[in-house]
């Protein structure tokens, strides 16, 4: 069973001043994209219970297996026989220098690309030619390296769209306002507020996504992905563009997401950062897996050091 006791991260201390700022921003709504002001770092409340049943009681073992995946675009081999797996309940770091194929790997796992050869198994079942939204419903959710929120929808609505992934209200339920519509709307609303509060965004629920500060947008993407009740949460450089202090806070947040029972796959190319958070690490370089193991092992692995620092042929 996952640990669902409230986390005691430093990030959870309430800060009244910041909440006031959030209110002011709301009072003077800005209609254009001019809000680039200081990131009024909201305080995530990691004591909120965001665990869901279908995620909590998963069998231990391999959740996702990438099996000998090769992906070619014309003459370019983006992934070359990559194999690794993710265990239930762990944080796996997927690292590598720029252009190593980390995001491509994500795209294969979420159905954006079909591998040229090899395949991906999720919960023991091959993903095959499933469409993207079907894979999300199976339980893989992701965020994007460059933020792809629904910019003209509010923060709340963004999360509601995620929550709708496990809803089935169609035209007729909506038109006739059948009980299913009401049940799913209130379930989605509860879930959305829970997640927004967890991410420290509840005060900004009614702001347009594009008007949120950068850091909040990043956190909103995670909230939206969590709303789909994913068994596996894939984060594609969630801390890109953050300063070291912000990065550290986000990593704590990711750990508390894991503590609530979610399995996390984390792309990040800042090695130091990944070391502290992840349980295991897979390293890619030029589309090939060059190392896999515990953070400590990776740190001392000569191939990894070479990939990151670049080493002369003679010296290695």
């Amino acid at each position: 069973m996952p640990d669902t006791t409230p986390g005691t991260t430093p990030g959870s201390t309430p800060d009244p001043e910041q909440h006031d700022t959030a209110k002011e921003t709301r009072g003077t709504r800005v209609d254009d994209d001019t809000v680039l002001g200081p990131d009024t770092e909201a305080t995530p409340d990691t004591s909120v219970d965001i665990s869901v049943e279908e995620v909590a009681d998963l069998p231990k073992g391999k959740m996702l297996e990438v099996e000998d995946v090769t992906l070619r675009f014309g003459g370019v081999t983006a992934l070359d026989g990559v194999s690794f797996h993710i265990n239930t309940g762990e944080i796996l770091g997927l690292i590598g220098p720029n252009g190593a194929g980390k995001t491509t790997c994500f795209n294969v796992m979420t159905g954006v690309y079909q591998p040229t050869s090899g395949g991906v198994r999720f919960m023991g079942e091959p993903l095959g030619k499933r469409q993207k939204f079907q894979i999300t419903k199976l339980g893989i959710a992701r965020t994007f390296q460059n933020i792809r929120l629904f910019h003209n929808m509010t923060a709340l609505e963004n999360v509601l769209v995620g929550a709708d992934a496990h809803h089935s209200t169609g035209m007729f339920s909506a038109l006739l306002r059948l009980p299913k519509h009401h049940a799913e709307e209130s379930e989605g609303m509860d879930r959305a507020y829970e997640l927004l509060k967890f991410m420290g965004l509840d005060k900004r629920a009614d702001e347009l996504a594009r008007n949120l500060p950068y850091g909040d947008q990043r956190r909103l993407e995670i909230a939206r992905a969590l709303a789909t009740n994913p068994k596996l949460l894939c984060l594609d450089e969630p801390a890109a563009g953050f300063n070291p202090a912000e990065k550290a806070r986000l990593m704590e947040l990711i750990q508390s997401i894991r503590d609530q029972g979610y399995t996390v796959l984390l792309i990040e190319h800042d090695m130091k950062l990944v070391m502290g958070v992840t349980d295991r690490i897979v390293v890619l370089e030029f589309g090939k897996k060059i190392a896999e193991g515990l953070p400590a092992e990776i740190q001392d692995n000569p191939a990894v050091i070479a990939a990151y620092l670049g080493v002369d042929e003679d010296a290695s």
Partner: protein
Amino acid sequence: MNAVSSFFHGIGDRFRALPRWAKIVLAIAAAVIVYLLPIINPPLITTTDSDFGAVLFLCALYALVAIGLNIVIGYAGLLDLGYIGFFAIGAFTVGVLGSAHAKLPLLLCIPIAMVVTLVSGIVLGAPTLRVRGDYLAIVTLGFGEIVRLILVNADSLTGGSRGISNIPTPPNLDLFGIPHLVWDGFVAKVDLSNQTRFLQFGVTDSIPYYWLALTLVFIVLFLDWRMQNSRVGRAWEATREDEDAAELMGVPTFRFKLLAFATGAAIGGLSGALFATKQQFINPDNFTILYSVLFVAMVVVGGQGNRWGVVVAAALLTWAPEKFRFLADARFLLFGLALMALAIFRPQGLMPPRRSVRAKKADEVAPDQIDAEGVARA
């Protein structure tokens, strides 16, 4: 430049702030006034050079069209330049089944027309909604013309360019007469010699058709509101914002695009059917590509995605050329200039949707309800 939208939104805000009973009273009063417009004949608004009732019917008819097209363009973000095609299919379904090849009553023809357009929407949408953006616009543009050309050439079915006449009218009730008002300056007098029979549908009086169209507008607006404020509406908006991201968040985007397209088509068919029964005579010349352009203009001028905006714009764009008929041909020049000015100074339309209103409503419940457990209990 924001004055326009803050004016409209100001009205909206003040209305929302009222107590419930006041809202109901005001809404009913407004509806009654709108229904009685052709009876009241308000000076300045009434059209002197053309039948005011007929102009109002067209306003309501095009408002209905705009609501339907707004679902396709405004909510789902699919640029449909062939909407007149659905309008024409709806009109000719009523013509063929009600007059040319069968004598079905109108009240049966209308639902059939909607089903036929719905199906044609799916038939057109299923292959074409896989292409995006500009390509979709071109395909739909072609569709509108194809429908017209089929109508011209399918002589045995549609009567070709001669068209179809004697299209059935809605059933008459003929309960009582309502005298019109005439204005002497700003003094109103009841004109007993000029009466509208309550619900007698005929060629002489357009007002009962106006009431019928207006009633349909209100019904469709209500259904439209229910659709938009649900999972369906959110899925449409998410698809419009970022199709790939929506798909990766579990939205079956193709299915929802098809739903928007088909729903829009069915409303287009309903409008076409209404047009046919009012005109009682239709021919393919009624359905040229220019109307598709006009319909898109209504949605864009109104503010894509705002149902009240597109209704106002549709009424305005229909009424204005009739009102200023005395300017003769110059009125279309002025009309074009007005559209250009709008495109330059207010590209988002007269009343762009203010997206946060809905979320705000949720927020009113939220702050005190998000308690220690962090769960909003609505």
